[in-house]
C-alpha cells in the first residue's frame, strides 16, 4: 500500500548536554524503515547539532556528527535550519556540516540537503507536514 506521509523531526536542543539530540537521531534511523517522506528541522539550540568541528575525544562522549552525515542514506531528504536561530548564535551556513543525498533508483544526487530557511518557511513546512516529532 502506498500511503506516504510527510514526517518532520523537529530538533530544538543542543547536542551533548541532554539526550534529546541522540534520541531524535535514533528515531530517525529506525523510522527510515517505513519509507515515508522525512525531513529534519533544526531550530533554537537545535542548530548546534549541525555545527562542524566537534571533537569529543576529551569528553568521554560519542561524537555523533558522522551519523548526521549519513542521514541522506537513511531516507532523509530534507534538512532545514532556521535562519534566525543561527543568527542569534553568531553562526552562518558555513559553520554547518554538509549532508549528501542520492536516490538509489533514479540516481538523482544532491551534494548538500542542509538548507537554511527563514521563519515564514519554517512555519509553512511545519504546517504542511502530516506528523511532527518534537525533540
Amino acid at each position, binding site marked *: 500500500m502506498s500511503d506516504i506521509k510527510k514526517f518532520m523531526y523537529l530538533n530544538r536542543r543542543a547536542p*551533548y548536554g*541532554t539526550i534529546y539530540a541522540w534520541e531524535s537521531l535514533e528515531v530517525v534511523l529506525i523510522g527510515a524503515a517505513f519509507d515515508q517522506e522525512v525531513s529534519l528541522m533544526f531550530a533554537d539550540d537545535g542548530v548546534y547539532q549541525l555545527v562542524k568541528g566537534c571533537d569529543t575525544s576529551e569528553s568521554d562522549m560519542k561524537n555523533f556528527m558522522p551519523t548526521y552525515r549519513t542521514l541522506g542514506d537513511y531516507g532523509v531528504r530534507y534538512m532545514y535550519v532556521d535562519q534566525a536561530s543561527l543568527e542569534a548564535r553568531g553562526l552562518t551556513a558555513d559553520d554547518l556540516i554538509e549532508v549528501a543525498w542520492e536516490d538509489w533508483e533514479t540516481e538523482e544526487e544532491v551534494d548538500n540537503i542542509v538548507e537554511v530557511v527563514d521563519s515564514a518557511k519554517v512555519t509553512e513546512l511545519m504546517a504542511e507536514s502530516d506528523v511532527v516529532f518534537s525533540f
Partner: protein
Amino acid sequence: MADLFTVNKSPFEKNSLENAIKFSTEGASILLIEDGVYGASKGTACESMITGAAGKKFYALKSDLKARGIADDRLIDGVEVVDYAGFVELVCSTDKTQAWL
C-alpha cells in the same frame, strides 16, 4: 576571595548564566561547563551577558568547548579556557562552589 559559580545550561534556553552573574559578588569566578559553554561564544544574542558583566571573571571548560566545535577564536575576549586541572584549581582557590543548573 569570592565564590566559584559553575553554569551548565545554554544561555539561550535557561536563565542560569544571567542570574548567576546577577547574584554573584564582585570578584566572583564563573565557569561555563557542558551546554553552558555556548555562553562564551562571541557574536551571539547572549554575548552582552558576559561583556556587560563588570568585576567578574569568566572561564570555559576546554573539553566541553571542543565537543561543541567552539574554537578559541570564537570566544568572547577575556574568557579564559581551563582544562580539568584548571577546574580543580578554581574550586580550591575560591571560597566555595555554587553549581547553577
